[in-house]
């Protein structure tokens, strides 16, 4: 039957820290308990594998130092341009609205009075209405109203009446 005391011993610390008495107890129990024997076997393999894994080391390449310094310069340059972009984004709306306000004020200041003094291209409505009938203002010179008679029609009408 699985002994929690044995399992607890396996998990309390690295297997290498178990003393001879504890190891003997684990093995003795494992001889008659399959579950604990399997747990001990897994713990033993785990310790073996972890040692092999921990023994693996990488040494820095001769170019590592140069690579880090290049990355550092790149990151600093990126950060500076990013900061400027962020500043512009934050101030952009304010600067744009200020520029629009200045432009509007300038337009009102310089163009407003000049526009008032300038001669108007629009026709004088009162003078026009006195000189020309409304029909002539609305129709082009070459256009003829449907109801208007031509000179020949007027003459023929008079002669026909005389006959």
């Amino acid at each position, binding site marked *: 039957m699985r002994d929690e005391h044995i399992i607890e011993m396996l998990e309390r610390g690295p297997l290498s820290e178990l003393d001879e008495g504890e190891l003997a107890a684990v093995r003795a129990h494992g001889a008659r308990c399959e579950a604990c024997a399997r747990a001990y076997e897994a713990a033993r393999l785990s310790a*073996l594998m972890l040692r*092999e*894994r921990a023994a693996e080391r990488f*040494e820095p*390449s001769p170019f590592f130092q140069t690579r*880090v310094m290049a990355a*550092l310069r790149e990151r600093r340059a990126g950060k500076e341009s990013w900061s400027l972009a962020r500043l512009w984004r934050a101030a952009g709306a304010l600067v744009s609205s200020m520029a629009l306000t200045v432009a509007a004020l300038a337009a009102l200041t310089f163009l407003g009075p000049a526009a008032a003094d300038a001669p108007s291209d629009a026709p004088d409505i009162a003078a026009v209405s006195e000189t020309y009938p409304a029909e002539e203002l609305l129709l082009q010179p070459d256009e003829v109203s449907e109801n208007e008679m031509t000179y020949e029609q007027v003459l023929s009408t008079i002669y026909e009446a005389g006959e």
Partner: protein
Amino acid sequence: MGQASDVELVRLARGGDEAAFSEIVRRHSPRVFRTASRFFRRREQVEEASQEVFLKAFTELESFEGRGSFEGWLTRIATNTCLNMLRSAKRRPELTLSDLTEDEGAWLDTHTAGAAAERHERAVSSAVAADLADRVLDTLSPDDRLVLTMIDGEDAPVKEVAEATGWTESNVKVKAFRARRRMREALEKLLG
């Protein structure tokens, strides 16, 4: 520059002296590589993580108060940077017997048989064991990986793990206890 103390180099680097920081990189890169090797197995991953550690260290130089050793301060940055990199990566699902390579299966067979370990050439056997360990560790949490690699793999004292991570010693003990259980259970499943 090579004779300057770490504290002096930090002071110069804070003032924008690139040569001083370059000397820090040269001096401490073996240790940072060693820390990164606990988390990553491929050389390019170790190199990338180590580079990230130095870039982070540069931005945090102001926080080094000089009360403890610079090496200890840098190791903590290295450990936490690597832990965060692993935490953001997707963890591998549970490893099953069918996922093992032929060599890994053979290694398990020979080593469970006990004295048959000599059948394999030592160098090949070590590489396969390390590979298998890494694959099992990939299924655990980054914290589990760290405590198992340091305490059970390197025989590092609990205090050293606490200093490298910023965890309390009792927290390290609890984490190690639970990590051993999870590693053992993962292996028991593989053994069938």
